[in-house]
């Protein structure tokens, strides 16, 4: 019973982490059809920015809750600047090329940004544990849960709801939906696709940085953290179906719960479980769980 409860909570926490990491990726893919490897850099920059912000903030002994918000704001500001620079500076020159070539463009950018991180922050690791420690913990039976994890689950739920609502009920969201559905028709109806692309990419970058920021207190912010996240995020969004928020959410939940169950019950298979789930889903639903099958054009 306790194990079942633990699997559920661990699965939710891990799913929240996966969703926050993957949602920006799926947004950019949905709208721009770009599988954005630079997402790993947004995550890393968000985490480094958050760690720096936390360091500055808590040195002054200010209240902890504000530190959490400050950290998120700094990270999202970094995401905004990076997203704008990359979209305007590099990506807009390669639109219209092969999807795979664009993946490679983002991969090249990612490689370069890995060294940029080392140039800005050096090779040492950074810590930002204060917000998590300040959050405290609750005890349920033998199990102790960190309140910070609960905040993460709530944050993921908020982002999912807000994203869903924004897509369905705001003007910009409907424009976005039109572009997702058919870019050319949307353009023909007077949607300024260029602006939509820029804004989408910036929002995606900010979400990527947010993912890094909220994880920063739990991890040691060090070189290479972006690499690990990319493939994890890819696996989640492909499982759920690329380009939809529901897909990312479902993918995150499935992967999160399967992984938690594996750790508790059969730890030997933890290493494969994410990829096994992805392969299994793709075998039965070749386009992921939530993708609408595109009509083939002659």
């Amino acid at each position, binding site marked *: 019973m306790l194990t079942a409860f633990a699997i559920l909570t661990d699965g939710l926490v891990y799913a929240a982490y996966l969703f926050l990491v993957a949602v920006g990726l799926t947004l950019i893919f949905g709208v721009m059809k770009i*599988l954005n490897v630079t997402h790993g850099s947004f995550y890393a920059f968000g985490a480094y920015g958050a760690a720096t912000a936390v360091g500055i903030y808590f040195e002054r002994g200010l209240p902890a809750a504000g530190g959490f918000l400050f950290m998120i704001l700094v990270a999202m500001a970094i995401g905004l600047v990076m997203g704008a620079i990359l979209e305007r500076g*590099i990506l807009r*020159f*390669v639109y219209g*090329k*092969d*999807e*795979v*070539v664009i*993946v*490679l*463009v983002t*991969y*090249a*950018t*990612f*490689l*370069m940004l*890995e*060294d*940029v991180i*080392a*140039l800005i922050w050096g090779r040492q690791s950074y810590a930002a544990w204060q917000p998590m420690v300040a959050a405290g913990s609750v005890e349920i039976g033998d199990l102790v849960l960190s309140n910070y994890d609960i905040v993460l689950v709530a944050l993921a739920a908020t982002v999912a709801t807000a994203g869903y609502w924004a897509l369905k009920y705001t003007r910009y969201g409907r424009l976005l939906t039109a572009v997702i559905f058919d870019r050319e028709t949307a353009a023909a109806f007077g949607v300024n696709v260029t602006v939509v692309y820029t804004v989408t990419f910036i929002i995606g970058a900010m979400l990527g940085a947010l993912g890094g920021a909220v994880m920063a207190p739990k991890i040691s912010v060090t070189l290479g953290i972006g*690499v690990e996240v990319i*493939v994890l995020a*890819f*696996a989640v969004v*492909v499982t759920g179906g*690329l380009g939809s928020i529901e897909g990312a959410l479902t993918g995150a939940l499935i992967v999160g719960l399967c992984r938690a169950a594996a750790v508790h019950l059969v730890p*030997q298979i933890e*290493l*494969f479980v994410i*990829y*096994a789930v*992805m*392969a299994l889903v*793709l*075998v039965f639903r*070749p*386009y*992921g769980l939530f993708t609408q099958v595109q009509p*083939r*054009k*002659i």
Partner: protein
Amino acid sequence: MWARQNIAGALAFVGLAVAAPFLPSWLVSLATIAFANGLVVLGLVILWRAGLVPFGQALFYAAGAYTVALIGRYTGLHDVFVLVAAGALVAGVLAFLIGLLLARYRDIFFAMLSLAMSMILYGVLVKTESLGSTDGFHVETGTFLGYAPHGAALGLALFWLVLGACGLSALLVATYFGSIAGVLAAPVRDNEIRVEFLGLSVNRLVHLKVVISGVLAGLGGALAALAVAHVDPNMAYWTTSGGFVFVTILAGAGSVAAAFIGSFVFELARSIAIDFFPGTWQIILGGALLLTILFLPEGLGSLAGRLRRVPERAS
């Protein structure tokens, strides 16, 4: 046109083989690994011409490498020709089986499903502690039809072996590109339905391409295992696959030779970058790729074409 390219290829091939003993041995061993990896890139070029890019080609690369290493370790069989053939064969069988599934997928799903497969192999290898897990294990030195060289002679023999494999593969792949199945790559990439209206099965065409590229990747992995004399699960990791895709884009799909030239340029550039700019070599590599895509969209291979075109225009 074809004939001229073939003659140029044959000349380059003979030239390299003759020059090898006079080149510094570090360059020969770098070229050995680069050309072995070039075989994997050649396989990716075949897929890319049809618009397909797998992010898990390292699966077949590692399969070929581990086949060689395991046979050497457990059977006492050391003849390189047998080992390399076995590596290519195992990878080919694996590609056939996985291809049954993979051939139904396109675009990013093709890429991600192949990635999932290679990551599962990676997981299995990491879990196999008797094979040294991520540390990997040593590959026994091979013999060449009874000839058992050491030191510099071994390096040269391996280089010639790799060169031979590359030459043979290049010839066969060039023939394939000229065949109906090969020529159909572009139509498959542009519009599958039109190809199906011709009465052809696109899935079978893709399946064939997956098998050919799998054999080439296995061949490359087998040769790389002999050249490095060590195998480890990292050969199946997604970053290895990503590296091959990187070189493929860098080289371009224009010609068979581009795969090998691209692979060699990449290895050399990486080695020089890491040597002279140890803190910023990733910026250099990433920047090179970015500039290639922006200004040489057909890859390095297209440079040769451009150079050739200039005198034609002049005349």
